[in-house]
């Protein structure tokens, strides 16, 4: 693999993961009339096995009355540590999370989805099963695989592996598998949501800064004077860029999450 194709692969993985998360959201809305939220913030309890009394932000959450779903996504588990990270995240969400859209901010039960590419699902399941006794989770951890189907209309295909959902209607659908057209993700924010709760590839980040942020900074008058020929000087601080990048992440209760790590821009 060349350096260039590595960059393409990383960018594609990142964008596919956003797409797969939206595909889950779209399925929830279409088939179960359930709203989903990107990067909603929750508080763990002092019973949490990983981080007690801290804020956590699953990549996606959905809620149907007193039942919830939290989703952690990663297309590629390319390193051994990635599997560990995924399992640790699941462990972190295996808690009576506070922050749901109910009166007391909790739900009776929630399932945890680990969303990954179809080529990684079996290994992830094996790793999870190998840790099952140590993990001792109280909530169901469901591995959902996705793959892109590039036939006539580009779409995502999703289905679950072994363990099923607590909700039987949800489980039926995820067990049989379903597809979601990429075109149908546009109204949900595909092309608007540029980031999810994972560090983006540098090339992807730079492309967004160049195409979407820097291009917007000069005034129309400055553009007219430059007439497409002369250079326009732009002065911008890292703080300013971080603030603007944040605006391209999904908005939750008036707050945009996640934040792009400042160290990526320093």
């Amino acid at each position: 693999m060349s350096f260039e194709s590595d960059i393409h692969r990383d960018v594609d993985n990142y964008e596919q993961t956003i797409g797969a998360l939206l595909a889950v959201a779209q399925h929830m809305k279409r088939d179960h009339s359930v709203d989903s939220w990107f990067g909603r913030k929750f508080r763990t309890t002092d019973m949490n096995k990983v981080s007690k009394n801290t804020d956590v932000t699953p990549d996606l959450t959905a809620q149907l009355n007193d039942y919830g779903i939290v989703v952690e996504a990663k297309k590629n588990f390319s390193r051994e540590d990635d599997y560990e990270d995924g399992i640790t995240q699941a462990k972190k969400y295996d808690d009576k999370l506070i922050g749901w859209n109910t009166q007391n901010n909790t739900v009776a039960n929630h399932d945890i989805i680990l969303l990954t590419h179809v080529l990684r699902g079996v290994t992830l399941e094996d790793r999870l099963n190998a840790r099952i006794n140590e993990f001792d989770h109280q909530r169901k951890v469901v591995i959902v695989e996705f793959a892109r189907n590039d036939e006539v209309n580009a779409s995502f295909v999703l289905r679950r592996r072994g363990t099923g959902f607590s909700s039987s209607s949800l489980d039926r659908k995820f067990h049989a598998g379903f597809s979601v057209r990429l075109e149908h993700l546009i109204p949900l924010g595909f092309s608007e949501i540029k980031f999810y709760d994972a560090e983006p590839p540098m090339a992807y980040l730079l492309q967004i800064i160049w195409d979407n942020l820097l291009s917007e900074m000069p005034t129309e008058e400055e553009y007219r004077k430059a007439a497409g020929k002369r250079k326009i000087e732009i002065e911008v601080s890292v703080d300013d860029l971080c603030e603007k990048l944040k605006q391209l992440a999904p908005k939750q209760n008036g707050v945009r999450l996640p934040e792009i790590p400042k160290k990526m821009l320093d």
Partner: protein
Amino acid sequence: MSCGDCKPNANLLLFQLFEKANNVKDLLPIIDDYLVGNPYRQISGLFVMSASDVFNVIQKNKLENYKIDKKTETNDVLSFKLIRHIEKSNRSISGNMLVLRSKHPNVYFTVSDGNLEFIMLGMKRYFEELFPDVSTLKLSSKHLQTVLNNLERTSNFKIIADKTVANKRIYQNKRESAVTYTGINFKEVFERASEEDRWIDKINFSAVKEDNDKRAMVMNAFLSRSSVYRVSNNFSLFYKNIISDMCGISQTLYLLYTDRSRRKHNEVQRAKPLAIEFGYAVFDQPKKNKQLIDALRELTNSSVSVIHGNPYLHASVVDFLDGSSYDLWVLSQNKIIIVPQLRATYSSINRICDHIFRKFSEGEVKEFEVAANEF
């Protein structure tokens, strides 16, 4: 102005047109008189759209190499002499012109007795330089067909295509133009072009009155996709039918293209995507994505980043003329989805869509929607 046998003095008529006309109603009989009986006299112009008052934009913006000598201004008409100095050949071209406010709030059209060089290198170029405050109307050949259809239906005259320029996209974005002298009904010309996968770019046409075996030409005009028109006689008929239709189309496009920026009052809003629909499977082979990318790369003063090229297409386009940016998606065989980003002016959307029409394939720009039964 007519007084039996005596012909109106052309200079006097032009003086009345450029110095005295207060509104459209005033100028129609003046232009009709000016054109009558002299096939070499022509009136030309084009259509522009703007969010601002174009009279103010013209008077406020002092463009390098252009000079405006204002003659008169009323509520509806701005009259001036436009002088352009062409640095390359170190010469100047000039002409008198009127800018007229249409009944649509964002649409204006121009009137000039200038020659082709003045219209194309003076007037048209001047408005292009006012981008993005002003945007010249860009039509599809379907729009041309629609206005001619309406003219034939409402006037009861036969519309004959005298000469057409039809383009065809051939391998690697090369274009093949064909000039045809037809003398047949315009509908047939458009049908033939469509069968040959061509699009009509320019058309010279006549409105003909048929009475038993007699045929009389009542209007002779020219219309192009870049919205430049030319009329040789019967300007009133042209105005009542073609110009008013073109202004309506212009306003519709303006409303479709406007207010698409995600940035509003320092807040970032949901995107408002558009779709170019082709009505057939234009992306039936993966190489078509490549052809679209090549076409996009021909857009001057812009950059194209391809995030995913095959089998579906995701590209990011930046327009360096005003900083507008877009995500472009091809996710099915019959449409391109354009998702405007933080800044997206109507002028830039007009420019991008026209470029895709000219360099790739003609389609129809619509609000992007997913049907409820599909969703």
